Structure formats: structure tokens, C-alpha cells
């Protein structure tokens, strides 16, 4: 893990002092609400329906055990005993008092954490996949460049008042688990034939009101040019992105308006002034940062473990958990474990209690090397668990409510906090998620259905990434009441696709039935082990629509 040096530390502590002063000036009336707004947003602080919400940055989803314990302590001391993991790998606290925020930030700074730029019209938390550094299909470790980008984007004075928020993701594996095609800038890192690091740069992806997949703007870019190239993109966007309409202000609209060729020419022209200048990354800097991500001291383990095999044979429940929640590791004898935060009715997707956080921190030390990852699917990953210890971990996880064997299944629902908390939401997300989880509570059936992603967003801002769910649910407002629009066929990863709306929206009460009918249609048409998304792509939307709307009482 990256450890702060005196510069990093000075920056976060000075930032806390600066914000403490701003909060005091706001409370004293010296700063207006309008003036304070971007200041608090750029420190992660939103005003929600019932209280302030603080979004803490978890850069590229990586946490140390001590950091997670600190989050637990914040949940306990300043919130209602829990926190919520977001689809940007961050943690949100939903019940925060403004006056206490500087103290919370201080506590975070003490463990090398912050909430800088987790909101606002600036470059947001840099994300990568949760299995970075350990995935069996990884090409290169994306974390050093993610950290370098994090530093570059943090309080970069030219780019703090962009037309709109700006999201960057980087990945470097055969599977794209970082959803790079739906980012303002998506970076795909890969080695050339000599092992030199190259970047493929995608630009203009994003969900929200106008979902668009990113387009390639450059390929074969040497890693040394990462910062100068991103700077060129940001400058073109900052100068020319629309500011008259917040719904047309993302870079995707600029790219679409100019066309990718013209946009790319602008960027290249700007970049010619920057390349080979002081922004060029140095090998020294890369190595300084990469040294923080050297592999931990793995033991030489046999790739198969006898006890583990026996445990699988003896306990179908354990075996089922292994098939869904355990991922292959690049080091023999090790696995990565996904702890599901989607137990169903017991807790909303992504919510974790302080006690659970403390337990996970303990397991990270007991079974791994003290590291924890947050996946954009809102689950928790322990990246380095010896196979021989999986059973012990599973037993503990079950006792803490973190042992659901549903990763990638229909009930592994990705959902935003929705109308229960969020001031932007048109509709609630959590009750919808829980109603579906309740409807599909038979694990055998769920495992038989296999991989199905279901994403719920409470409004068009799409924090729940509904467009890229195999089944997407979007909360919409119709004359003051809450309705849900269903999309089908979305997908993430290299075969990213945006879902298509199946027809008129449904009431909350109708949603579980609609999902049942969609699933029944899949079961009726699927061929052998065909996953849900493949069936949708093969047979199209019509059979699903017929089954849903043909049978329904007149939908609204």
C-alpha cells in the first residue's frame, strides 16, 4: 500500500485546517450557502434529505486494516454505527453533523486518508479494479499509475472548477473489472512486446442522463506521457466543455458535439505543447510509487490443499460460497475473497456496520497482509487469503453477516442510497433491492440462474450504474409518485453495453413480479448453460416484453 510521506501528510493536514476555517466562516455567516457549497463538496460533504453526508475517498478502492478501523470508529462516534460503500469504491456516512466534519477529517488524516474531491466539478477518486495486483488475469499492476494520477489530480488548481465532475479509471487485466468504458477518461494499461507500459486512452464515456460508452482517442501512449496527456484532455474540456446546462456539461457531450476525430485533434495539438516537458513522468517517480505496491511476502504454498478439498466436499454451503465468492490469485495457493455486503433484507446493498468493519480489519490481518479492497460492486475484497484458510474465514464471515454466497448473482444488487437518503433521488432504491432479494431468497435457484447483474439507480444521475446492469432499474418521478423504468441487456467489462428500456415504468409493488417474469423468460429460452445476458442478446427484448406487459394489468 502507498504510505504517505511528509508531503502527502502535510497536504491532508493543511487541508483539514483550511476546511475547519471554512466551516467556521460558514457557521459565522461570513460565507454564503452558495460560496460554501463547492468548498464543502470538494471536501466530500453533501447536504442530503435528513443530514449532511460525508463521502470518504478510498483511492482505487484500497484500504489498510488500520484505516478500516478508523472508518469503523467514525461510524460509531459520528454516525449511526454504519457506513455505505459506493460504486466509486468510496465510503459514505449518512448522518453527519457539519460542526463535527473537521474532526472527522482530522481523524482520517491521521491514518493517511481524506475526503478531497469525492464530489464537486473536479477530478474525482481514481478507480481501478478491486483485484489489482493479485488477479490471475492481470497484465500489469495499475495501482502505481492510479496513485500517481491521484496525486496529480488532487487540488490541481487549474482543474477544480470544471464544467462538471470528471471520473478516471484505469485497468490492466484481460477482464475489464473497472468499467473503464463508462468513465470520462478510461485507461487501459498493457505491456508492449518488450514489456514497456503502454496506455490505451478512452474518452467521453459516462452514464447519467445521456449514457455513452467511451471512445478510443489514443493507443500506444507511453506511460511517461500519462499526466501530460490527461492534462491536455482536461484543458480542452475545461476551455470548451458546455457550462450553460449541467445535463450537457460532461465531456461526453463535448466529444459527441465535436466528433471524436476533431476532439482528438484538439487534444493532440494541446499535448504537443506539453509532451516531453516537466509533466513527463520519470522512472524515479514511477519506482518510488511502485515500491509501495511490491507483492507482500507470500509463502510458497501448494496450489491445491487437501483440507480445503475435504471441506468443499463436506460442506455444500462452503463449496457454493467458493464458487461464487472466491477468485483466482496469481500466486499459487492463494485466493482473493469477496465478502458480500448484500445479505438481503438484513441490510441495504453496500451498508456495513462498525462491528463488521472491525471484523474485516481483523480478518485482513489474520488471513492476509492487512489489506482490504472495495469493489465497485460495493462488496469487500480480501485480496490474499491462503486456500487452506478459506473455510475458517468463511465461518467467521457467515457469523458476521458477510458470508452471503451471492457474488455476481441476481441478489448481488448494485444500488445507490436512493430516496431514503439522497436529495437528488426521484425514487427509493433500497426497498426495491430488498423486495427483489426477498423474492429470490432461494440460493439453489439463484446459483442455477448464474451470472446476472441487477443495478438500481434512484435517479438519472445513475450512481447505481443501471445502464450497465443486465437488468437495470431506474427510479423516475411521475406527478410526484415513484415509478421504476426497467432496462435489459446492459453489460460491463470489455463487452460493455447499455441496456435498453423495455417499456412503460412500473410501481414499486410491481417490480418484484416484473423481475420474476424476466427471469422466467430467461429460464424458458436459455440454452444449456447460457448466461442471462447471452440469452437477452440472442433472443432480443421482445419475448421479455411480451411476458412482462402481456400479463400485466395495464401499466402506467
Amino acid at each position, binding site marked *: 500500500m502507498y504510505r504517505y510521506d511528509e508531503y502527502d501528510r*502535510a497536504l491532508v493536514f493543511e487541508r483539514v485546517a483550511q476546511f475547519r476555517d471554512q466551516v467556521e466562516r460558514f457557521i459565522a455567516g461570513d460565507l454564503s450557502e452558495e460560496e460554501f457549497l463547492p468548498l464543502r463538496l470538494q471536501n466530500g460533504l453533501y447536504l442530503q434529505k435528513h443530514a449532511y453526508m460525508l463521502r470518504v475517498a478510498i483511492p482505487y478502492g484500497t484500504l489498510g486494516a488500520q484505516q478500516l478501523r478508523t472508518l469503523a470508529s467514525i461510524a460509531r462516534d459520528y454516525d449511526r454505527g454504519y457506513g455505505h460503500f459506493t460504486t466509486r469504491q468510496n465510503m459514505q456516512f449518512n448522518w453527519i453533523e457539519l460542526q463535527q466534519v473537521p474532526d472527522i477529517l482530522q481523524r482520517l488524516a491521521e491514518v493517511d486518508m481524506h475526503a478531497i474531491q469525492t464530489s464537486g466539478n473536479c477530478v474525482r477518486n481514481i478507480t481501478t479494479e478491486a483485484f489489482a495486483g493479485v488477479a490471475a488475469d492481470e497484465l500489469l499492476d495499475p495501482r502505481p499509475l492510479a496513485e500517481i494520477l491521484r496525486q496529480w489530480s488532487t487540488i490541481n*488548481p487549474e482543474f477544480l472548477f470544471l464544467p462538471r465532475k470528471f471520473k478516471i479509471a484505469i485497468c490492466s487485466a484481460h477482464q475489464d473489472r473497472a468499467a473503464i468504458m463508462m468513465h470520462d477518461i478510461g485507461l487501459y494499461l498493457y505491456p508492449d512486446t518488450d514489456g514497456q507500459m503502454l496506455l490505451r486512452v478512452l474518452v467521453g464515456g459516462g452514464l447519467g442522463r445521456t449514457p455513452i460508452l467511451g471512445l478510443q482517442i489514443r493507443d500506444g501512449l507511453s506511460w511517461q506521457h500519462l*499526466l501530460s496527456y490527461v492534462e491536455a484532455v482536461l484543458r480542452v474540456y475545461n476551455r470548451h466543455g458546455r457550462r450553460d446546462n449541467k445535463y450537457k456539461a460532461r465531456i461526453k457531450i463535448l466529444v459527441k458535439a465535436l466528433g471524436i476525430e476533431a476532439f482528438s485533434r484538439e487534444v493532440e495539438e494541446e499535448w504537443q505543447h506539453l509532451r516531453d516537458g516537466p509533466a513527463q513522468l520519470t522512472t524515479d517517480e514511477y519506482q518510488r510509487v511502485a515500491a509501495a505496491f511490491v507483492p507482500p511476502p507470500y509463502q510458497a504454498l501448494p496450489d491445491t490443499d487437501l483440507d480445503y478439498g475435504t471441506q468443499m466436499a463436506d460442506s455444500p454451503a462452503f463449496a457454493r460460497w467458493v464458487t461464487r465468492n472466491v477468485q483466482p490469485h496469481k500466486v499459487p495457493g492463494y485466493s482473493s475473497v469477496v465478502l458480500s455486503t448484500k445479505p438481503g433484507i438484513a441490510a441495504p446493498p453496500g451498508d456495513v456496520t462498525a462491528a463488521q468493519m472491525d471484523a474485516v480489519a481483523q480478518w485482513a490481518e489474520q488471513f492476509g497482509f492487512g489489506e482490504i479492497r472495495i469493489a465497485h460492486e460495493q462488496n469487500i475484497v480480501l485480496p490474499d487469503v491462503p486456500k487452506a484458510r478459506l473455510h475458517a474465514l468463511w465461518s467467521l464471515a457467515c457469523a458476521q453477516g458477510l458470508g452471503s454466497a451471492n457474488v455476481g448473482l441476481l441478489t448481488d444488487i448494485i444500488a445507490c442510497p436512493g430516496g431514503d437518503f439522497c436529495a437528488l433521488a426521484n425514487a427509493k432504491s433500497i426497498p426495491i433491492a430488498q423486495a427483489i432479494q426477498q423474492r429470490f431468497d432461494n440460493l439453489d435457484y439463484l446459483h442455477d440462474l448464474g451470472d446476472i447483474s441487477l443495478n438500481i439507480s434512484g435517479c438519472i444521475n445513475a450512481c447505481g450504474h443501471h445502464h450497465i446492469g443486465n437488468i437495470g432499474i431506474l427510479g423516475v418521478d411521475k406527478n410526484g409518485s415513484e415509478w421504476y423504468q426497467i432496462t435489459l441487456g446492459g453489460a460491463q467489462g470489455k463487452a460493455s453495453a447499455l441496456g435498453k428500456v423495455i417499456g412503460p415504468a412500473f410501481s414499486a409493488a410491481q417490480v418484484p413480479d416484473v423481475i420474476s417474469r424476466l427471469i422466467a423468460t430467461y429460464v424458458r429460452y436459455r440454452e444449456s448453460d447460457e448466461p442471462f445476458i447471452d440469452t437477452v442478446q440472442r433472443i432480443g427484448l421482445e419475448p421479455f416484453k411480451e411476458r412482462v406487459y402481456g400479463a400485466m394489468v395495464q401499466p402506467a
Partner: protein
Amino acid sequence: MNNLLSLEQGVAAIKLDDPWTLVRDAEAPLPEGALILPLALWLSRRIAPDPPHDAVWLGPDDEVEHLQPWLEVLPLIALDFPSFRDGRAYSQAYLLRTRMGWQGELRAVGDVLRDQLSHMRQCGFDGFAVREDKSAADALKGLAGMSVSYGRSVIEPRPLFRRR
């Protein structure tokens, strides 16, 4: 008085004797004295045989590149922040300073507030006409900003990784 902060040789101070008058309305009769004019008006006055020694201000929609031929004759360039949330002037300042080589005063005008002054300073502004209803003495506290900056900027072209 223009509620002006000014950086001279790295030292920030409230400037009480600023001679410039910012002209927002190009249609109204021009006041006497040293004027900062909108770009179109400024250009139109250049064609006089003995052009006046006006300064110019650019809005965020104006292209800074238009000023390239005039850098020798301009006494001052101002960049407007119609709202402090409009960040285009930061990039304009960067381009004027870094790419076009503007050495004279670069003044921030408009919605210029304490909490953005350090960003402006880092992007090359050295004059700050603080919004009328705010105290310049108070705003002065915002100019220094933080001691660490990761990225490069106009006043520190080397990113931190070349300095750490």
C-alpha cells in the same frame, strides 16, 4: 478603490492606489482615466492613429490567442470570473503565462473570492480585484493557500515528483 490585492515580487498587499477602471458596459459613455475594456471595444480603439493606452479584459468565451499580436502594447490583462464556479479563466491564465509568454499584470476580476485566490495565484494571476462586497484584508488570508501542491502550475512548473 478597486478592492485590489496585488502580488509584487511574491509579496501580497492591498493596493490602494490602483488607477484602473473596469468597463463592463461597452455601450455606455467611457469614463476618464485608465480603462480596462472588453475585447471587442479594445480592438476597435486600436485602429485610431494614436491608440490609447487601454488595458483589456477577456470573458471566459474569449480566446486568449486573440491577444497574441498585442502583448507588446498591452499594459494589463484582466480575466473575468462571471461566477467563481466558472473555471475557464484558470486555463486562460495558464495559456497566457506559459504558452504566450505574458509577463505583465494578470488580474482576476468578477466573482473573485478568498477561497479561490490561491488557485488563481498558482495559475499565474498577480492581481486580484476582490468582489466589492468582500473585505480585501480578509481575502488576503486566502492567497497563500497550502504549502504542498502535487501538480505543476504556472508559478511552479515542476510537479512535486521532480522536487520531492
